[in-house]
């Protein structure tokens, strides 16, 4: 197996809650509580889950937008989470990021050319002014924007075009890994397709590794190689795309898949409607974190926390059901097609 370009080991981020008379710490939000995964060169790993599950926090922690509580981030064999600001700076180049909202993530007072030139200058990638111009033009070409776009302001562009500018900026540092945090969620259906296709093309052309953070399972299925499902700060299942969608091995994944509305009227599918809301990450449930909503929970789930372990090659799941014989395990077998009404 080749060495992964990005590795995350037992990542934890607990945000302190301050309150009380002296403003002391009264508790923690366990946003990310022990997450590990790795991404290989040219691979897309998707991180899916509902709001508040910690998926965006993982992305921000990798970028070191804040300090970690615990754990390691290893980029190309080098640990980067404990680096100081100045040692990290040249390495930051290797991580690109695209955020959700293309309206708030571009500086309205900078022309597109300057937005793209800034990272090139910062990382000292251009030899001279002519080289800088050439690189900016190349970036515009890469994201299929006209070259004269450089002389215009962000407000002159539509949402989809702005997201192209954000992608070009993420590529400016010649990164190895791109983190897309809900990069297509705010876009309209037809524009979404354009950006999804662009991201796939870029990945093929540049051999990028991608961490695709999203809540949209249909898009994820379309563009990813592997999927990691998060619930309340933990990964509950990781598997290659086909295995995950054909035979989910965690009750939460199964429920997520069955909840996605499919554009097929009258589709006969098994519906699993979860009751209740996601518990608070300030006070996560004891035992398995999903047991309060799990349709299959039994006594053990309320006491022991299941660990992520391999159920078959490359397919990891954190669920006690897999200790039971197959006849008593509702997740045995391939139920994916029945849940998502696939013909």
């Amino acid at each position, binding site marked *: 197996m080749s060495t992964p370009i990005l590795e995350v080991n037992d990542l934890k981020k607990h945000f302190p809650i301050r309150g009380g008379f002296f403003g002391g710490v009264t508790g923690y939000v366990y946003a990310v509580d022990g997450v590990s995964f790795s991404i290989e060169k040219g691979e897309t790993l998707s991180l899916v889950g*509902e*709001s508040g599950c910690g998926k965006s926090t993982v992305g921000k922690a990798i970028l070191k937008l804040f300090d970690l509580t615990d754990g390691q981030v290893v980029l190309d064999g080098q640990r980067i989470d404990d680096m100081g600001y100045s040692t990290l700076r040249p390495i930051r180049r290797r991580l690109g990021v695209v955020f959700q909202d293309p309206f708030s993530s571009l500086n309205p007072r900078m022309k597109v050319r300057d937005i793209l030139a800034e990272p090139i200058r910062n990382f000292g990638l251009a030899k001279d002014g002519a080289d800088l111009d050439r690189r900016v033009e190349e970036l515009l070409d890469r994201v299929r924007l006209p070259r004269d776009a450089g002389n215009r302001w962000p407000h002159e562009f*539509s949402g*989809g075009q702005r997201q192209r500018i954000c992608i070009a900026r993420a590529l400016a540092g010649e990164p190895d890994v791109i983190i897309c945090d809900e990069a297509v969620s705010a876009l*309209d*259906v*037809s*524009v*979404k*397709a*354009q950006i*999804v*296709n662009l991201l*796939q093309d870029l990945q093929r052309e540049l051999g990028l590794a991608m961490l695709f953070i999203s*809540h949209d*399972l*249909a*898009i994820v*299925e*379309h*563009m990813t190689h592997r999927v990691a499902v998060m619930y309340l700060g933990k990964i509950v299942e990781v598997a290659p*795309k*086909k295995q995950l*969608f*054909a035979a989910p091995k965690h009750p939460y994944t199964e*429920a*997520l*898949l*069955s*909840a*996605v*509305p*499919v*554009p*097929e*009227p*009258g*589709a006969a599918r098994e*519906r699993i*409607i*979860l*009751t209740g*809301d*996601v518990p608070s990450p300030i006070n996560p449930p004891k035992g398995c974190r999903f047991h309060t909503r799990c349709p299959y929970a039994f006594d053990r789930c309320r006491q022991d926390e299941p660990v992520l372990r391999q159920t078959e090659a490359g397919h990891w799941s954190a669920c006690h059901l897999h200790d039971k014989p197959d006849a008593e395990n509702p997740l045995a077998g391939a139920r*994916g*097609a029945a849940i*998502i*009404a*696939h013909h």
Partner: protein
Amino acid sequence: MALLEVENLQTHFRAADGINRAVDGLNFHVNARETVAIVGESGCGKSVTAMSILRLIPEPPGKIAGAIRFDGRDLLTLSDREMRAIRGNEISMIFQEPMTSLNPVLTVGKQIGETLRLHQGMSSNQAEARAVEMLKLVGIPEPERRVREYPHQLSGGMRQRVMIAIALACNPKLLIADEPTTALDVTIQAQILDLMRDLKNTVGAAIVIITHDLGVVAEVAERVIVMYAGRKVEEAAVEKLFRNPRHPYTQGLLGSMPKLGSSLSGEETRLQEIPGLVPSLKRKIDGCVFASRCSYATDLCRTISPALEEKAEGHIAACHYAIKEAVAA
């Protein structure tokens, strides 16, 4: 007679640089107890249509023309007082953002009770008792306690349930839901859609659901209206529309959506793109509104606007080239 008939609705907004024709000549009807979906991308005029029906468009800068007949009365000719008696009573609305559409300083009980006191002349006590009933109906646990809580004490899904409770409190004949599940997580969305389906049967209201999500449309609607750039481009029963879309825009929309389960069939297809952008609504468009993005467009499309035509039984599309089947007269 249909419950709601919208005839040549034109909602225009005066802006500094021209007139924005947000809705430009829209016709549709909704029968009693029917669920109709209006789909389209942002800026196609679907929300403005909903706001126009309830006359929530500020005039000026907005201007609503045409006719909106509800139960035989033209809503556009009613006085403000008459209109107030209809809003929240006979026609009610659920908005997208449950966070911003509830009043943060009133308990949910007060907010549900408000419509009841106003429209049905209930006393505070009666209204509160009915509020508890409504909360129970929309599946909120411990309604007696929740009724005294404030919106910030509830989760997003619960707030949307409260919004639905408010909308249904007076047993409306028509419920307009503008992107009711867009702001919610997928497992919560499934709960809310399920609830809406159940309630439709118990309350018996007609529903107009406005959404950009074709998956949601397939789950709840009986008939679908596809809007583009302020106009209706296609209308059909839900199975017909999904199985046999006639308008190139609808075809493009369906093609640009990845299907869940695509990896199971092993075929890795590229998503279909609709090139270009929605045209500016400030310019008067001669010809077909979709011509600038349509791969089949010809000179005919760019000069003459196609009329809405019945292409198959109960299947209307505005396209010169859409396949037409013999329709029994």
